[in-house]
């Protein structure tokens, strides 16, 4: 099966972003970490557990009508370190890049420490420093290494 065939499995988009090479099963977390839940009117198409040459299976997320910013792309690195980002205009891929790990992420994850000041009713956004092998709450110092996706904050 050619790459084109795989792309077509989840219809081509005219303008927007295709996030490819997401680890299998992480597509919904990708949308969550980007804060995309459909309420903004975006058309979203998802392919899950698609056969992949480099990963055993991969997910693909296509967001019509929205080009992701570099900050948004970098946040993806926490849960989709192998992802490639394709910016599509008029059905053509005009930019293709990989995610980079940011130094910190703000307002994306919630702190699992129930005694952290970010978990009470204070006017503060969560902020995590990105470590080599996890993230660290910049307020209470709690380190999260496993299953970071489960700490994606609810809006």
């Amino acid at each position: 099966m050619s790459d084109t065939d795989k792309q077509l499995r989840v219809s081509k988009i005219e303008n927007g972003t295709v996030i490819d090479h997401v680890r299998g099963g992480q597509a919904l977390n990708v949308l969550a970490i980007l804060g995309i839940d459909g309420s903004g009117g975006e058309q979203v198409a998802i392919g899950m557990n698609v056969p992949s040459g480099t990963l055993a299976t991969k997910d693909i997320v296509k967001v019509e009508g929205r080009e992701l910013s570099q900050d948004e792309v970098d946040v993806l690195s926490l849960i989709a370190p192998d992802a490639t980002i394709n910016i599509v205009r008029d059905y053509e891929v005009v930019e293709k890049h990989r995610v980079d790990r940011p130094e910190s992420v703000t307002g994306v994850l919630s702190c699992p420490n129930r005694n952290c000041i970010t978990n009470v009713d204070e006017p503060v956004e969560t902020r995590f420093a990105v470590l080599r092998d996890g993230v660290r709450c910049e307020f209470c110092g709690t380190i999260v290494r496993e299953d970071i996706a489960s700490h994606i904050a609810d809006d």
Partner: protein
Amino acid sequence: MRHDHLLTANQLTRGDIELVLDRAAEVDANPASFGKRHAGKLLGLCFFEPSTRTKMSFEAAMKRLGGDVVDMGSVDSSSVKKGESLADTVRVVEGYADALVLRHPLMGAAKMASEFVDVPLVNAGDGAGHHPTQTLLDLYTIRENAGLDDLSIGIMGDLKYGRTVHSLATALTNFDASQHFVSPESLELPRSVRYDLHEAGATVREHTDLETVLPQLDVLYVTRIQRERFPDENEYHRIAGEYQIDAETLEDAKDDLTVMHPLPRVDEIAPEIDDTDHARYFEQAHNGVPVRMALLDLLLEGDS
């Protein structure tokens, strides 16, 4: 000091620590010369948790610098009871004071509060997080008694929730110190402190009993195992009993071992040790005033 706020010991370089300790030594040597240094200045005390030593020593320190304090009082008698946020409280008190001291039961509270104020803010303990000014007075006491380099220190008790331990262990990475942590497995150091020690390349050993490591220690820092951490009272008594020291315990210690405790103690250190040359915990508590005078002097001198 390069910092506007003192939030955790992670901020402190060796140079910062020595600056405060040297200034504290100047205060100790000639307290009268500091008596009018900050006349007219006010320190805001925001204590959301009970405190005796920390609160009183900050108050004494500010008054001995010629300044005074404004105290929000107990939580029960403050606007916090009405549901006011911490962010609002510190912004209000900032309007009354030249610097703030905050104690709060939640971790990261001082860090968050510091982002809402422009005056210097000092963390006087944030839950099980940090207590950096306790660490400064601990280091002052250690330097006076054993020196800060080529030091072998045992830190025993509740290492998991003990904020004084977290700050002290982190600050000691600035010095040539071997750190021996003695605790039950259930109260070992948290992951975040281990991470900092590892990143700093600290020399660290962990033990479940004091016996094996005691003979090589220059300093033994004892902390309280907190009864409220244990769901089972019997389990608390079984564990706490293994981490108490008395004269017999110290028979194998060096003659010049310095025994410290951030206080309050319950029964971790038998009273019979109080009168020995090992006991330095009351001296340690007294050092809270000159060290906090030194810290406040440095934080406030920028606008003197």
